[in-house]
């Protein structure tokens, strides 16, 4: 029977989330950004499971399933967009995709 205190588990999940966040912030390559988002999804799911186990409720696991679904769709759309960006800009640099800029400077 696992007796690891819940606080450490939660902190671990938080750590995972932060690593994903750092990855998202630093990497300029779109693929790595997508990947970091996946990490963050995963750590969020982990927290649900931990809580589900603690309260012995099934909701945690159900929630994880939904997160999975969302993650899957997100990756599909993300990669499709990534392909379009790659064809259009011939590069995967996140900063070059800057058309939303306020151009009255």
């Amino acid at each position, binding site marked *: 029977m696992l007796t690891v205190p819940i606080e450490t588990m939660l902190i671990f999940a938080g750590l995972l989330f932060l690593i994903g966040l*750092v990855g998202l912030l*630093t990497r300029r390559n779109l693929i790595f950004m997508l990947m970091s988002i996946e990490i963050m999804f*995963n750590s969020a799911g982990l927290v649900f499971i931990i809580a589900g186990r603690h309260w012995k409720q099934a909701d945690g696991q*159900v929630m994880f399933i939904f997160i999975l679904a969302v993650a899957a769709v997100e990756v599909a759309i993300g990669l499709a967009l990534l392909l379009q960006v790659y064809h259009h800009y011939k590069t995967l*640099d996140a900063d070059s995709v800057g058309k939303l800029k306020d151009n009255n400077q």
Partner: protein
Amino acid sequence: MNFFFYLAAAIALISTIMAISGRNAIHALLNLIISLLAVSVIFYLLDAPFIAALEVIIYAGAIMVLFIFVTMMLNIGTEKKIEKRWLNPRVWIVPSILAALLLVDFILIINGLQIPEPVDETLNTKQVGISLFSTYVLAVEIAGILLMAGVIGAYHLGSQKKKVTHRFLKK
């Protein structure tokens, strides 16, 4: 029992760090798959075997494979020199500071929580299955629609239509 948990956690952490700091996209993806597998071990330890299985099948199996498939197909992740320029150490400083701050916050918040003692009922996958299709049946349907929409969207976005100039945008 705890030992396995800490081992899996360590593996997961190291592999995710390797994943985000790697230059080569494929290596990074593979590291990420390792970390996902480690997390599924943790799920198992948290006596959620169904979720662990799902994690391995869908998450590691389907999503990551799709990822690798796309990067390999268009071999877009391999420009070495650009990656090096983008990855000079100075870039890491600010995000890591922010992450550290957030970590401190997480720790403070989590330690501040008064989490009551766990209830000693049993929880097994059967209950998950039952609740999945009893209380959350609507959510499951919506998830289904979401997935369908995802598929159609991905198809349209991904397809290589020939260049069509817009009626008045003239692009």
